[in-house]
């Protein structure tokens, strides 16, 4: 196995922020919320920021979300049925006043369809400093990554359990903000137990890059988050939170759940 690649410091604010959190010995927690799933979604974001999120992924609903399981599909559909559009999400985010970085998670057709400048303009308007497109792999990502970096936005790439070491290195090197380790072979969703692959992908990434390594997909409980974060720099939690929101737990339920994840991670 090769040495750990020390990546050049980047000017992007998301990466600077996450690296500094890590330097303080804090495990990083990134919850995911589907934008516009109901009227209280901005309050929910406020609540999870207060509960100790280090960054927040905002899902921009897309008609054909191939990396999402039933929970996030349902939330996306609910948002689309309410007439939510990318433009309306970013316009609402502009009203938000929190000191936690925002990351847009969606599918690449939305950025290609709108064009880089228009989409980039929306991101900047909404105060978003990172993007994740699960259907935009390394080979197809360069143009957007370069453009995004030029306007201070980090394009985050994913590494899968099936990615080879050399490919993982290339991805980690091209990724900005952090590297997203995919915790299991499957789409987003709640899993009863943690997949073995979650810690494996974390340790193989930690061995090859000094970028912040976060693991997501299939991490549903404080116990599972804690287990992965023993190896990774932190976790991303989506479906387990969105399920609570779809069940009507609202900002208070979100606050309680994110607090429980936070205190689990702080025990480490």
């Amino acid at each position, binding site marked *: 196995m090769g040495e750990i690649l020390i990546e050049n410091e980047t000017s992007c604010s998301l990466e600077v922020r996450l690296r500094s959190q890590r330097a303080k010995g804090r495990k990083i927690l990134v919850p995911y919320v589907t934008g516009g799933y109901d009227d209280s979604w901005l309050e929910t974001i406020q609540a999870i920021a207060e509960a100790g999120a280090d960054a927040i992924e905002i899902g921009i609903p897309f008609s*054909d979300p191939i990396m999402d399981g039933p929970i996030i599909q349902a939330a996306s559909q609910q948002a689309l049925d309410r007439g939510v559009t990318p433009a309306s999400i970013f316009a609402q985010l502009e009203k938000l006043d929190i000191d936690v970085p925002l990351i847009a998670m969606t599918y690449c057709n*939305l950025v290609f369809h709108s064009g880089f400048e228009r989409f980039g303009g929306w991101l900047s308007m909404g105060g978003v400093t990172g993007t994740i497109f699960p259907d935009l792999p390394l080979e197809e990502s360069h143009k957007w990554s370069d453009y995004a970096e030029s306007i201070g936005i980090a394009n985050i790439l994913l590494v899968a359990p099936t990615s080879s070491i050399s490919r993982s290195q290339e991805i980690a090197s091209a990724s900005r903000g952090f590297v997203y380790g995919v915790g299991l072979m499957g789409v987003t969703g709640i899993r009863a137990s943690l997949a073995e692959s979650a810690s494996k992908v974390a340790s193989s990434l930690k061995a090859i890059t000094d970028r912040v390594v976060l693991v997501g997909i299939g991490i549903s409980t404080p116990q599972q988050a804690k287990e992965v974060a023993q190896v990774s720099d932190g976790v991303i939690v989506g479906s387990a939170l969105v399920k609570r929101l779809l069940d009507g737990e609202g900002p208070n339920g979100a606050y309680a759940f994110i607090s429980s994840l936070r205190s689990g991670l702080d025990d480490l």
Partner: protein
Amino acid sequence: MTNLSQDPKAISGDFDGRFGDFGGRYIPESLNHAVVELERTFNEAWADPEFMATYLSILNSYGGRPSPVTKCNNLSRSLGIELYLKREDLNHTGSHKINNVIGQALLTKRMGKTRIIAETGAGQHGVATATAAALLGLKCTVYMGELDTERQALNVFRMKLLGSEVVAVTSGSRTLKDAINEAMREWVACVEDTHYCIGSVMGPHPYPYMVRQFQKIIGEEARPQINALIGNDPDFVIACVGGGSNAAGTFHAFVESRSALIGVEPAGGAAVGRGVPGVIHGMRSQFLQDEFGQLQEAHSVSAGLDYPGVGPEHSYLSAIGRAQYESVNDEEVLSAFQLLARSEGIIPALEPAHGLAYIVREAGKAIPFGSSVLLTMSGRGDKDAETVAHMLGYFQ
């Protein structure tokens, strides 16, 4: 026995998965390994005489190839043109889909995988995949939009009879595009032992190229067949286009000929005609989208053409002006469906009835009197008889 040409190139030159600005490989990282393995396996197999001999021998002795070219004497007379049909409707399972699934099922075994999954709209590709799985001893699951399982209930039964599991997809518009989404999601979770058998010239590279290679037998048979009949290439080569596999397979042999190439789309799903470039289902191509890039639903009398996108090769052929794409409405299709049955004794599938509808409408106009026309009859109409009977009020 037909021998397929070995040419590994697409018309755009050395093939890297791009048809001009279209194609590519836009997939979750989790699938990258499998898709790269598939590309390598396909390229090796395509150059392996033993693989090709097995593939062609199954298509011939089991699939019923070569399929004939039939002259439509009665319709030719009434339309004032010379109309020929490439008879893919005579293949085992009733359509051109068998050409592709036999190839992909053999690749599945070559990769050491034991299970195959597929999406289906009308059920033709699902039935073909279930058939190939039964023949070659593979487990098979077919994803079908819930709406389509209702429209094509008999095909659901056929797939089950062939030993396959059928999953009714309840998300989104509950049609073909959602079946593709669900098959892709499932594939991400089971990619280690499962091959995703995409039914058309779409998806991430190598699918659009690979499926075209498996389907080009249509045109490679048809060109010498029609030349033997009329002593020349036809003035027009016409095929219906949903994802576009029978059209791609037909056009390929004629791309460098003098023949005009025309793809016919349903008016409610004209991705080449009315779509704009986008990146969905693993490829950059033309799609029907709203102003923000959300994929829109297609609407057509034919479930097999109910797809709001199209294979990247067609976007490319259209962009460079080598093929032209026209559309017909459901009413024109229904009348062409009946016309072919009455005048030639051939009940077409609703999909190729689109091609015929265009010919009927344009004979003496865009298709001058006296022109020679080759239409790919991509499937037979048994599966559609009940739908059409309802539409014509026969069951009231």
